[in-house]
């Protein structure tokens, strides 16, 4: 009878073990980053790439975390996400380089990008980018192997234990191979950074004092990973076979692994290396000698073949004169003067470049962040970023408010414009068709507008900002004798303009009387 569900404590143990494995990978990648950094410094001592170890650890962490997202996507979505992830990393690296080297460099390089995108990919950037991409890829492979070793949920209850075990062992083998290969890489890079190159190579690259602790730490972490993966493998086997396991074993495993590592580290540190090095020097001489002998034999054989071949060709055509070398007769072209750039075309090109460039980056970053909601939330929690976001949100809200006010104002104006043609029509109809055709409301408005127009002609122009009541106050001050008429006329206009109720014809006629009096008084101002 096979239990089809894994115990809860088993799942939590697996999770803990996976997390420990992932942390180990990040630390290992940091060690790789250190080796890459010193190798880079050997290539170009002026590079400021001190961030590389941390960057490698962060990229490794990102590669591990994004695996869940990548796994949940299929087909096109997956590739879009991966592309956006890589672009995001590339952009982040570029920003990091500017952070460490100063943003002045950005302003110097920025105009050059649209001329030639090669300026974007500077040598140090390409070095860091390639290093980080390697870290990203390798971390993905290792994380995948670790997940496979710990992912028993799907296998739980599978009765083909032999197949599962074989599969797990192969996965572990693959994991160890990748980790040790990378370790060889770390050692090689560290050695390349430290060792003085032979003079014969004629390469002027001074060695750097690269530390060795990162290589030692890498191998210790690799051994720790091997130990963890071995425990995961055994634990899975025991659980598949329903073997009761002593709960002490996990802690003892950790404790004895630690002791074992301390012991072998101490042993490796204590054991003398100078004797070995003497041996190595001897071996080096022997190897060099062997290589030189082999090279000599190869050269001799090549020479012999060459000599024989030259003999054969001579015997076939002994008197044939040496043919002059064929020189193709290319048509000569006059020295072309590059045409002068067309300014508007250059401008369009520039706009197009920046649109495409920034579009790709913004799309990639947006896609990446939207998929990584945890990362997005974490970024938002950074004090500076949160402050920046709050500021931006405030500005955005303000802009939205302004926009809304603007829209309201425009709509109000449009309403006014919708009325204004009516007024204009009223005025024109009053001119061309007579007042009789207007209704009482339009008549009152006409009287008031006519008053304003006439007031403007007599030096009492209404300012656009003035309300009818403010204008009334001006008129009353100038024409105190018709104060009452002006007051009635203004009130009637407001009523006609803004009220919804019916305006009677009598009221319009009454207003007309007042208007005539005011107009008469205005004429007296001449």
């Amino acid at each position: 009878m096979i239990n089809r569900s894994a115990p809860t404590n088993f799942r939590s143990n697996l999770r803990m073990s996976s997390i420990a494995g992932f942390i180990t990978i990040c630390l290992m990648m940091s060690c790789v980053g250190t080796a890459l950094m010193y190798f880079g410094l050997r290539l170009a001592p002026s590079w400021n790439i001190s961030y590389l170890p941390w960057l490698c650890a962060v990229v490794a962490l990102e590669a591990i975390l994004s695996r869940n997202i990548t796994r949940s996507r299929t087909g096109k979505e997956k590739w879009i996400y991966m592309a956006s992830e890589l672009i995001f990393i590339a952009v982040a690296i570029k920003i990091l380089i500017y952070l460490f080297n100063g943003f002045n460099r950005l302003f110097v390089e920025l105009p050059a990008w649209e001329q030639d995108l090669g300026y974007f990919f500077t040598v140090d950037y390409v070095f860091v980018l390639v290093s980080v991409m390697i870290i990203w890829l390798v971390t993905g492979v290792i994380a995948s192997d670790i997940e496979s070793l710990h992912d028993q949920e799907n296998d739980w209850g599978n009765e083909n234990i032999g197949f599962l075990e074989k599969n797990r062992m192969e996965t572990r083998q693959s994991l160890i191979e990748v980790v040790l290969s990378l370790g060889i890489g770390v050692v090689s890079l560290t050695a390349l950074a430290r060792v003085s190159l032979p003079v014969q190579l004629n390469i002027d690259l001074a060695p750097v004092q690269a530390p060795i602790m990162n290589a030692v730490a890498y191998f210790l972490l690799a051994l720790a990973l091997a130990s963890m993966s071995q425990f995961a493998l055994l634990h899975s086997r025991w659980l598949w076979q329903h073997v009761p396991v002593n709960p002490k074993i996990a802690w003892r495993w950790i404790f004895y692994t630690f002791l074992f590592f301390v012991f072998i580290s101490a042993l490796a540190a204590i054991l003398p290396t100078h004797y070995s090095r003497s041996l190595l020097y001897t071996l080096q001489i022997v190897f060099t000698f062997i290589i030189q002998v082999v090279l000599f034999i190869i050269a001799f054989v090549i020479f012999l073949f060459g000599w024989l071949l030259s003999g054969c060709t001579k015997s076939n055509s002994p008197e044939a004169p040496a043919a002059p070398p064929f020189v193709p007769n290319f048509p000569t072209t006059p020295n072309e003067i590059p045409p002068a750039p067309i300014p508007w075309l250059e401008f369009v090109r520039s706009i197009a470049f920046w649109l495409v460039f920034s579009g790709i980056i913004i799309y990639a970053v947006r896609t990446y962040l939207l998929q990584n909601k945890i990362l997005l939330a974490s970024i938002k929690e950074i004090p500076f970023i949160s402050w920046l976001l709050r500021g931006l949100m405030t500005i955005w809200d303000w802009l939205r408010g302004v926009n809304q006010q603007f829209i309201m104002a425009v709509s109000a104006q449009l309403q006014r414009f919708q009325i204004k043609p009516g007024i204009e029509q009223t005025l024109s109809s009053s001119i061309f068709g007579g007042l009789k055709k207007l209704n009482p409301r339009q008549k009152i408005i006409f009287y008031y507008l006519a008053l304003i127009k006439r007031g403007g002609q007599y030096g009492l122009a209404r300012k656009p900002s003035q309300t009818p009541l403010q204008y009334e106050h001006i008129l009353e001050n100038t024409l105190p004798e018709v104060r009452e008429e002006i007051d009635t006329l203004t009130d009637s206009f407001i009523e006609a303009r803004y009220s919804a109720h019916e305006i009677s014809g009598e009221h319009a006629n009454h207003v007309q009387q007042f208007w005539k009096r005011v107009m008469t008084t205005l004429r007296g101002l001449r």
Partner: protein
Amino acid sequence: MSDTILICITVLFALAVVTSDSFVVTLLYLLAGALLLGRLWTTRAMASITFQRLFPKRLFLGETITLKLDIINKSRLPVVWLRLQESLPLEIATMPFYQHVLSLGPRERTSLSYQLVARKRGYYSIGPLHLTSGDLLGFSKENRLEGAVDYITVYPRVIPLPKISLPSHSPIGNLRHKQPIFEDPNRPIGKRDYRTGDSMRRIDWKASAAVGRLQVKQFEPSIELETAIILNLNNQEYHYRERFDATELAIVAAASIANWSTTHKQAVGLVTNGSDPLGINNLAQPMTPQKGRSHLIRILETLARIKSADAQPVAGLIHQHRVNLAWGTTLVVITGQAEKSLFDEFFRAQRAGLDIVLILCGHVIGLQEIRQHARRFNIPVYALWSEKDLEHWQN
């Protein structure tokens, strides 16, 4: 896995030669140390692991025991993981095999236990105990050890048979008898008046003087029942359909009769043609009739181990061992079939002064004919179909 490490060590060695940098040598030491010390650790630690099983070696049917398994690490090196797998016989195990994974510190002793249930008589091996361990890094192959085997004996079922009656011609024994011919002078039961013909030796002079007339002593008749159980486990002499059950029933009957005899302080022996795993050439050794509980235990152990086999026919077996039996011994022949040749042998045995009881187990072809034959020879015949038939002798 070790190939990968060896390749890595080789590459590191090449790098050390090319670069002549001491740190590469240090790393070389580190990796080689991890490989070699890991392997050495596991090998040494495994070599110093011992174990012992503590359990009663003999069980009665239906009994449940707890077997204690002590695992001892005699080394100063810890054993980080150790997998135990103990093979168990299905007849007594509560699980197909017992397995456990544990960790042993330096000189640590751990006790594990599991239960055994005696469901069927037999002689069973406990183990072997398979021990597996490996290094922490999984770079070397796992070390495996196979431990020793222990044995356990489950006795056959013993049914009390208080009412069983076995014939005997051996006078003066411990068993009461009805026939006055077997009067035992050691068992006086009273006195009576003298009658003509009474032996003068039986007159109780003191009692005669007291009563005033001749009184003779009365003795209870008793017999000595020396029993030899002839257990036939020849497969060919049992019906093929019920061979297993019938032979098991025969063994239960033999064990019960042996127990009854011992309880009544009578000598009992066992002769069988079954296969005994501890016997010479797998043949069970005959046991001459003897008294005592220790002898009964030996018989029960033999009956526990014994298995039916294609063996010598029972007639030949009786013929072979009859000469070693004392006059008056009762042969209890337990078999699955009684051929004419068997009755011929019975006749010879009776001529030699042996009493015979025939117990037939399982399905018997021609039972009536056998009974008729037996009646002619005055041989009691009992036919047992199941263990319930033995209850006839209980009440």
